[in-house]
């Protein structure tokens, strides 16, 4: 009788790539719910659009490349990219924004580089940066938190406005973006940045009524939501602690030093940590395994680099938030980091060299 042959091990852990991706998507749930709570259903609609676009794009390209796309779709990596991108897009941007973004993310950043596992850059972030540069107005058009808007909006409204530009009641996006006092709303980071250029101090800026009314709190809540999801990922060992911890620590330290130097011009570490996409970036974006460093020490450097760049770009750069730029910059440094942070292999201690030399000498005799 002949038997089937295979190479060992013949036994495997149950978790597959698809499982991993689905777990990460699941872990975004608290953050997503809070984001919907505060900013409306827009992101979910965008996720639907982006998700479909992502799957279709991936399938088409793989078909052209003559690969088995069914299996590739099942690993959910395209869906995850779509989700992350959808979460970064202002909720009521037009539908084509997420379509263009997703096509770019999957088609160019991921598949043109060779598909899953070969992309140098984080697809969601690269697409976000592309959108930000191409459509700066739309991409900074964040709505005020849900509770602040004069118009109620439901999922249908959200879909309507995304596809037509108007709510079912005929409100335009611009009207929705108006605050109760008629000011155009933006993200806290954006506002502080603008105020600082208008020679207000940080404390003066934060004292504005919008903050008091909960703009800042809403963003903080969303961040806390993603933090919770991230902690879950750590617990189930879907990600390792190195990147989030070093990234957040680097941000806190850098921001802390700046604040100590001049608290009027620089915002507090807590403000940095709990505004913008910090937590989403720390736990869900920077930890993308494909484009991150792969050694433990390398991950520490990678995370710290991202944290530093975020603070630098937020403080001195042209854009209010900087997760995407920081991640892309550090993506480029990954090969270098990996090369210089290789762990010491078993039996390669320096004193062992002596032992080996001694043996060589003996053999030489």
């Amino acid at each position, binding site marked *: 009788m002949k038997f*089937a*042959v*295979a*190479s060992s091990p013949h036994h495997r852990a149950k978790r597959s790539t698809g499982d991993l991706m689905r777990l990460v998507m699941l872990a975004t749930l608290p953050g997503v719910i809070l984001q919907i709570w505060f900013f409306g259903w827009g992101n979910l609609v965008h996720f639907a659009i982006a998700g479909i676009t992502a799957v279709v794009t991936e399938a088409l390209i793989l078909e052209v490349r003559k690969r*088995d796309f069914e*299996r*590739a779709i099942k690993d959910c990596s395209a869906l995850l990219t779509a989700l992350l991108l959808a979460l970064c897009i202002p909720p009521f941007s037009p539908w084509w924004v997420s379509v263009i973004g997703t096509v770019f993310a999957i088609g160019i950043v991921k598949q043109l580089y*060779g*598909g*899953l596992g070969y992309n140098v850059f984080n697809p969601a972030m690269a697409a976000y940066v592309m959108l930000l540069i191409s459509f700066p107005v739309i991409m900074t058009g964040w709505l005020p938190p849900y509770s602040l808007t004069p118009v109620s909006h439901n999922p249908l409204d959200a879909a309507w406005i995304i596809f037509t530009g108007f709510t079912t009641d005929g409100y335009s996006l611009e009207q929705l973006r108006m605050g109760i006092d008629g000011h155009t709303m933006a993200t806290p980071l954006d506002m502080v940045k603008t105020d600082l250029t208008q020679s207000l101090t940080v404390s003066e800026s934060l004292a504005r009524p919008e903050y008091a009314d909960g703009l800042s709190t809403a963003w903080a809540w969303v961040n806390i939501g993603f933090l919770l999801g991230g902690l879950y990922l750590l617990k189930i060992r879907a990600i390792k602690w190195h990147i989030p911890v070093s990234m957040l620590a680097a941000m806190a330290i850098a921001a802390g030093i700046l604040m100590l130097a001049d608290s009027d011009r620089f915002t507090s570490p807590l403000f940095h940590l709990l505004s913008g996409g910090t937590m989403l970036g720390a736990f869900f974006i920077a930890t993308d395994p494909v484009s991150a460093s792969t050694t433990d020490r390398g991950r520490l450097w990678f995370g710290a680099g991202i944290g530093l760049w975020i603070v630098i770009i937020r403080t001195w750069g042209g854009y209010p938030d900087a997760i995407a730029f920081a991640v892309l910059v550090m993506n480029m440094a990954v090969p270098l980091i990996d090369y210089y942070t290789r762990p010491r292999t078993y039996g390669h201690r320096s004193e062992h060299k002596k032992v080996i030399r001694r043996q060589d000498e003996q053999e030489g005799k």
Partner: protein
Amino acid sequence: MLGLIAMIALGLLALVFGIVLGYAAIRFRVEGDPLVDQIDDILPQTQCGQCGYPGCRPYAEAIANGDEINKCPPGGEATIKQLADLMGVEAKPLDAAHGEEDVKKVAFIREDECIGCTKCIQACPVDAILGAAKQMHTVIVDECTGCDLCVDPCPVDCIDMVPVEPTPTNWRWQLEPIAIKQVQ
């Protein structure tokens, strides 16, 4: 006057740089790693002469002097690739005029038929055939490069080229039935 100063200045500069360059040329002179040796290292050393040269080293010399790199059937594609890397040229397919790549073989003498003519001994480029006149000859398998050169001289055609059989020690994990199927 100004022109003169300029000329002198430039002349001096030229002199200084010339000296510096000359010194550097001597001080940091790189002993050229002889190209022929490097090529010879890559060639399989079967000494079969299929390339048209009497041995691997002459071919290495010819390559160094600009001959084609695709004339070595025993080395096959792997050797051509390595040579291409070394010479900085495009890898080409093997020149069929010189033979085709084949599995590794060694010579085997059917000893009953051997008449002991020593012709193969004289043909063997690496002295891998043992024997004497009127004595049956035998191949030292470990030394045989599989060059084929002993086959033609044999007047009684008692030399076969037999493929080297795989053994558990030289087996290279060819698990053909294993399902290593690739998606990407």
